């Protein structure tokens, strides 16, 4: 099979897929679930329970009311003890519903049988409504409310659904295991999404380092006309939406526009699985697969975890916090963010927990930029990270915007190749934040 890829930029970090052979283990229900109200892009959901309420697993506890927002469901059964601000993964304090667990009683409406349900009789509108009702958001990390993505804007047409099974971040293997263990459910989820979008074609992009998943899904896809599996060259960030579209279809999404501009809609394979569970089993999104990994673990693992479980419990179940741990990262080594506490709960956007020892965690001191232009060669979006960094340092926000800083997808390729160890990604994130803030305030005027 010819390997497809994207042409501009990209880097080759060590893959370190230490946990790719570990089957998904179901973690026990946590003693206390701390469920943030804001687990998607856009506005946080509004709590509809109060202190003292008894809730069941899968019960709606917060409603997403704005256009870009998502419902939040309880991942445990028990009593709501408080609604307060907690430290969440972003490092900020955000409101969350705290539930003390009692047993594990699920909502009666949820179909808990393991049998595969292939047929879906709902109309596209009903599918989209169900996706919203069940709180499904993009599980590739961005947590964009899936319902919104399924609504094709006026004047645009969707031609192909692309499923993202690339998982290009080193160390992370949650999607890999999901494709191996829930492959057919993912394909059914894809057919449901295709129906909602009104498309006849779907493509599943998988990086070449997951041969078993490629073979498995290709075999299953024989029974699903319209779905084709594509083997992709291992190159970071192949899993980035625009790069995936470029590799699979050859089309480039124009700057600052959405994929539907070139007829594509992209969903993570985890999202497709969540859609399957939501539509076919009436099961809201309250648990997901999270990789727990790092070179110090004897057995890096993939866990099916309830939302709201403290990270400490994941680490504990993987063998405990190793001696000499220097950093705990939520996500992968390229785009992940370091956590300041292990009490932080798992949320819909959590894909992996990565531990570094103190040596691996140490950042080299930044030296002067030597203008080597490696960052320019590495950037998959055709930006000039060295220039944007300088503009951010000098607070030249308008100039940074003029140099397309908002096109940066924060992949970290530039920082990865910089020989002077400059914190390019940190500055880019800061610059994007400031630039978009300024845009918002100037629009309000």
């Amino acid at each position: 099979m010819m390997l497809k890829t994207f042409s501009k930029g990209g880097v080759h970090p060590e893959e370190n897929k230490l946990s790719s052979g570990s089957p998904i283990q179901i973690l026990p229900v946590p003693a206390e679930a701390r469920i943030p109200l804001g687990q998607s892009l856009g506005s946080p959901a509004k709590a509809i329970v109060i202190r003292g309420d008894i809730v069941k697993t899968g019960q709606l506890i917060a409603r997403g009311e704005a256009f870009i927002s998502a419902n939040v469901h309880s991942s445990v059964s028990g009593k709501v003890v408080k609604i307060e601000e907690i430290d969440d993964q972003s490092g900020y304090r955000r409101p969350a519903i705290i539930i003390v667990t009692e047993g594990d009683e699920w909502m009666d409406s949820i179909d808990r049988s393991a049998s595969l349900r292939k047929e879906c009789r709902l109309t596209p509108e009903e599918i989209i409504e169900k996706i919203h009702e069940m709180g499904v958001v993009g599980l590739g990390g961005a947590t964009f409310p899936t319902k919104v993505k399924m609504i094709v804007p006026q004047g645009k047409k969707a031609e192909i659904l692309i499923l993202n099974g690339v998982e290009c971040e080193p160390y992370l293997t949650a999607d890999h295991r999901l494709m191996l263990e829930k492959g057919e459910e993912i394909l059914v989820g894809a057919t449901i999404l295709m129906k909602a979008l009104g498309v006849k074609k779907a493509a599943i992009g998988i990086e070449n380092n997951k041969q078993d998943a490629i073979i498995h899904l290709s075999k299953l896809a024989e029974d699903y006309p319209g779905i084709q599996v594509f083997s992709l060259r291992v190159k970071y960030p192949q899993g980035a939406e625009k790069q995936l579209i470029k590799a699979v279809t050859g089309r480039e999404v124009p700057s600052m526009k959405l994929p539907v501009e070139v007829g594509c809609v992209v969903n993570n394979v985890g999202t497709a699985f969540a859609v399957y569970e939501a539509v076919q089993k009436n099961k809201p999104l309250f648990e997901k697969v999270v990789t727990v990994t790092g070179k110090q673990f004897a057995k890096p693992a993939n866990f099916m975890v309830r939302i709201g479980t403290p990270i400490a419990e994941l680490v504990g179940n993987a063998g405990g916090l190793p001696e000499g741990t220097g950093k705990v990262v939520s996500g992968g080594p390229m785009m992940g963010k370091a956590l300041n506490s292990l009490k932080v709960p798992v949320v819909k956007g959590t894909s992996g927990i990565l531990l570094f020892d103190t040596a691996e965690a140490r950042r080299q001191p930044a030296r002067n930029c030597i203008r080597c232009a490696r960052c320019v060669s590495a950037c998959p979006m055709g930006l000039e990270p060295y220039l944007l960094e300088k503009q951010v340092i000098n607070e030249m926000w308008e100039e940074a915007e003029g140099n397309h800083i908002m096109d940066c997808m924060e992949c970290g390729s530039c920082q990865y190749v910089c020989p002077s160890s400059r914190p390019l990604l940190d500055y880019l994130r800061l610059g994007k934040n400031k630039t978009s803030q300024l845009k918002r305030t100037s629009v309000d005027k």
Partner: protein
Amino acid sequence: MWGVVVALVPAFLVSLWYFGLGAFITTALAVLSCVFIEFTIARYILKEQPAISDGSAVVTGILLAFNVPSSIPWWQLVIGSIVAIGVAKMSFGGLGRNPFNPALVGRVFMLISFPEDMTSWPLPLQNRYVLVDALTGPTSLGVVKEGVKNGETITQLASQIPDYTNLLLGNIGGSLGEVSAAALILGGLYLLYKKIITWQIPVSYLLTVFLFTGVLWLINPEQYIDPVFHLLAGGLMLGAIFMATDMVTSPMTLKGMLVFGVGCGLLTVLIRVWGAYPEGVSFAILIMNAVTPLINKGFKPTLFGEKVKSKK
């Protein structure tokens, strides 16, 4: 930076072979002076942590030495080092902040200030153990320039011009690091292999010189010497592979690098053929260093998704 030092070892060994003691002392002195000056300015004037370990001062020292005759008086070399590191690099803010190639600035300063000593070229092999009063002779480019000015044809000058073998090996008069095209090309291949430089600048520079001088040679081979000679003689190999490729002072995109190389090539030939000096590499590169910010503004990388936008 240390990879560049490794790439310069072949040329250094050749210089020891042909120019002996002079080459060794000149190189060592230049390196020590550059390192000392950078350290002193960083520590005592700028009051910051000296960054000698990045190897850039060492590289500047080696390249400065490689661009001067092996018999250069020690005090002139020290002054050149002060200008290279102090003026051309540290006064702009240190590593990464200089607009001009420091070694070339030092070299050109020495050429203008000490024209006699900077154009006294020790003959190869005859001055290995000599430190003063070296036996000197003209460079190949010098022979051609003077001869053509006096109305001689290339055929008439042929006996005074070294053949290709000597030009490749380095058995010729010239700056201590520029003589052996073969040793420099070897170093260049190492730099490419280690991905320390990209091919765009050396190839566009050399190709431009080759084509420009080739056209002239085709027009009148008695007045304009052949393009292969131009490639092998003088400081072109050293300049195209080690000086023009200095990351700090060259463009940031591959397209820009091609433009830079072409510009260097055109200016080099212009000066060699019609300018006052027999060699134009140093000036050509310095002029293109000045143009680099404009090149960076004009030749930006293609934005992802841009082609689609412009089609609409």
